[in-house]
């Protein structure tokens, strides 16, 4: 039956709760700021519509009939194959684990050197472990080089 000798206008529990909430809020804010800071910037992989290789823009004259070459553009890595007078563009990133595919003129197939996936010239899967087809890329060839017109499905 003893009364509390010191009046407590604000209870200790309330102060602790406020301190805890404040600390949580500060930590959450900091975590958000760190995430925003580290989040990849859009457009870091952006390029032009002109396909370029390691040594500069790809030269269409250097791609013979039945040959293929990989270049980089604003839609990512693109495999260009010249077959029957036609320019065929496919995404050069294997749909399995992201390796760069290449054109094999002997087998007339697109091949992934990492896990052996094979694709046809329309991007369709001929052999696993890849399950998804390579995306088609519309190309435009002129005196400047090989341009990416649009990325299709």
């Amino acid at each position, binding site marked *: 039956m003893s009364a509390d000798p010191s009046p407590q206008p604000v209870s200790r529990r309330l102060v602790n709760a406020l301190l805890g909430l404040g600390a949580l809020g500060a930590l959450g804010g900091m975590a958000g700021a760190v995430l925003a800071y*580290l*989040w*990849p910037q859009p457009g*870091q*992989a952006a390029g032009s519509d002109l396909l370029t*290789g*390691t040594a500069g823009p790809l030269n269409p004259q250097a791609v013979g009939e039945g040959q293929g070459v*990989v*270049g*980089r553009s604003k839609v*990512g*890595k693109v495999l260009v194959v010249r077959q029957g007078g036609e320019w065929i563009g496919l995404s*050069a*990133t294997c749909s399995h*684990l*992201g*390796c*760069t*595919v*290449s054109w094999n003129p002997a087998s007339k197939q697109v091949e*992934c*050197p*990492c*896990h*052996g996936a094979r694709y046809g010239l329309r991007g369709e899967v001929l052999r696993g*472990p890849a399950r998804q087809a390579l995306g088609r890329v519309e190309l435009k060839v002129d005196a400047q080089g090989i341009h990416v017109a649009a990325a299709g499905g």
Partner: protein
Amino acid sequence: MKGVQRALWQWLDQRLHLEPLAEALWQNLRKVVPPHVNWLFTLGATLAALLAAQVGTGVLLMAYYKPSAAQAHHSIEHLSYEVPLGWFIRSLHAWGSHLIVGLALLHLIHVYVYGGYKKPRELTWVSGVLLLALLLGFGLSGYLLPWDQVAYWATVVVTQSADSVPLAGPWLRRFLIGADEVSDPTLGRFFVVHVILLPLGLLGLMGLHLLLVRWLGISPLGRADEPAPDSEALRQRGGHPFVPYHLLKDLAAVWVGLGVLCTLALLWPSPVGEPADPLVTPLGIKPDWYFLPPYQLLKYVPEAVGVLIPPLFFLLLLLLPFLDRSPERHPRGRSRAMAAGVLVAACLLLLGVLGHLSETTRTILGITYHFDILGWPSHAGGKAAP
């Protein structure tokens, strides 16, 4: 000299009151280790020494390494071909990483077999498994830093696997590599993780692990539900104090470990690979040997399942002391645990060997075999190619 030492100690003790701390430390170091403690119990000390050497060579490498996609490979070439002993420091660091992971796995197997994870050493085990995860993180982040073809494409394959994580896969992968594909931001991130974040974690966890090991002492072979024998009982059974008997064994093993490291680095220096080319994937890209089991597993099961199995396996390892509640420590009384351990080790070994052999052509006993992507052999001719 002794007078100077004594005067220095008195000066420190008068200010910091170190005497009780030194006495407690000395008592701890004089604890008697159980009689079954043999050379296999020196793995932890050897591992600690190799980690210290790894920190030393890592600091030296940082004096020349440049963490940018445009300069990283050139800085490795400069370090390996022009800097005096640069090739040796780099080889020590590369071989050190292999030895450390190998010894850590042996240490884990040893503790598992002797039941050292049981009460009251559950937290020692947990901190050890977390340390192993950190070591694998070091391996993964450090592998990319030379920015050569093998490093680049192995990192592409490993980080692309994160894409298959249910729900957050593509988000997670993009955050990990800092861009849409492995490139300059990835190198920056992996560098910071390798030289700042993981070493800080290592320092904290190693400190905790060693503290727990010294505080609790080496695990006896008796049952976990029996009271632990004191130093006198252990001495009567043939045990010896940690200092100097086991410490000398530890030091001998440390010198052997460092000797093996130097020998490997001298005889087989780390080669400098071709610079990374994101437009050309070379044949035969494989991760380091300790990542071969999950790499090979991904070929047999759907990616969404394959990427979840390694973290689940690690979680099981972490929770082992809380799942295996039997108080028996001696391997002879834990036949089921031993069988499970052998089965897991055999599966990992088999996956590793299949991963190593896959997509290669080898001649075994005069017959040439081609091992396909799954690691299955097919007859490829009677003789090896010249």
